[in-house]
């Protein structure tokens, strides 16, 4: 977006405001009296997100969940993983939430790349895995164990999909519809 800060309605009087140095209360410069929160712009070095479809030119179609579009527009570098990569997105495919390739540094093919979360329109969250994740989050030891099992001890994305994405999600009929 490239703006230095944005006004935010609300948050005055909250403890959140006390704990954040990137949000302050400012006076409306136009009326000279109304006070509101302004939030310092975030300028991420790198944004990484998963999308439904991308093409060789870096154009990305994110279904209808458009929030990541803003993320891409705000970040210096953008890395996208996608369920499917095509030669060139069609007009129709680019009609929803769309990130033009000029913002995007890299696109990688990663089917089921949103797992254990869902990828809108293609698959929902893996509720069994999510429950394990929540249970593992209870303390540091169990969360370390979770990270070892699902992140550090996994060679690559293919191995992750093979071992942890439910088998029935991967049947050919389903994959074809994606």
């Amino acid at each position, binding site marked *: 977006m490239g703006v230095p800060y944005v006004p935010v309605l609300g*948050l*005055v*009087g*909250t403890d*959140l405001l006390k704990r954040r140095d990137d949000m302050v*209360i400012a006076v409306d410069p136009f009326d000279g009296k109304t*006070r*509101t929160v302004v939030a310092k712009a975030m300028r991420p070095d790198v944004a990484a997100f998963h999308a439904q479809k991308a093409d060789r030119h870096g154009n990305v179609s994110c279904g209808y969940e458009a929030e990541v579009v803003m993320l891409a527009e705000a970040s210096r570098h953008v890395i996208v993983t996608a369920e499917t990569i095509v030669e060139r997105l069609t007009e129709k495919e680019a009609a929803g939430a769309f990130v033009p390739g000029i913002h995007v540094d890299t696109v990688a093919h990663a089917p089921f790349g949103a797992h254990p979360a869902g990828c809108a329109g293609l698959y929902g969250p893996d509720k069994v895995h999510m429950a394990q994740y929540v249970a593992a989050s209870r303390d540091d030891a169990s969360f370390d164990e979770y990270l070892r099992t699902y992140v550090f001890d996994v060679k690559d994305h293919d191995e992750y999909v093979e071992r942890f994405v439910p088998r029935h999600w991967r049947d050919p009929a389903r994959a074809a519809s994606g």
Partner: protein
Amino acid sequence: MEYSEAELLAVLLAREVRDGEISACGALSQIPAAGLLLAGELHAPNAEIIILHSAFDPFRTSRQFHYLAQRGEMGLFFVSGVQIDRHGNYNLHQLGADPERPRARFPGGYGGGMIYYAARRTVVFRTEHTRRSLVERVDFVSAAGATPPDVLRRGHPSKVVTPKAAFRFDKDAAVLKLDTIHPPWTLDDIRANTGFELDVKGAIPATPAPTEEELHVLRHVIRRRMIDTGTYAAWAQQSLGN
């Protein structure tokens, strides 16, 4: 007529909806969802009902919902909090005296820190009325009941509704005042289960019980609609009319 706490709360929340207004609830809000649909079926046929992340959600992104609320078009919103205090502050973040080492953490106030200031009225609901949920001062203010008059704000909390009583928020004094008590609970019960001074002068009226019509529509029409539209269907099946 017998009714469950969930049914009572759904009916009481429905009564807060005004015809012609936009009224909404957010995530994990099965009771307000039932209340909103009930109001639409009874006294508020022209209310615009929004149940986020359901078949009754017109938005594709949360930004679209935020912009509508920020413009001041949201008449009524329902929120809950793990703690609610005497000054209408609510806490959806964490418990414990030391903010650096909380005893428990909660999802946080994603949209609440905005919607509490943007909706013209917000009704806070809580399914537990105890001294740990209704407190003198919340451990963490996720959204503030009152703000100085020069702060941009389009609305305020209007009520707090629990299974035992309803409080109304006195905007000028910035305190919750006991409004009605749900029979069979008494003023002594409310005093014993509320963690702040009630400051009651005179008799507190009894909350009008759910009517036969309210319960009938809730248990038949609304229950069916929630199941058919996948709107907290499992909850509706289990909690309404059993």
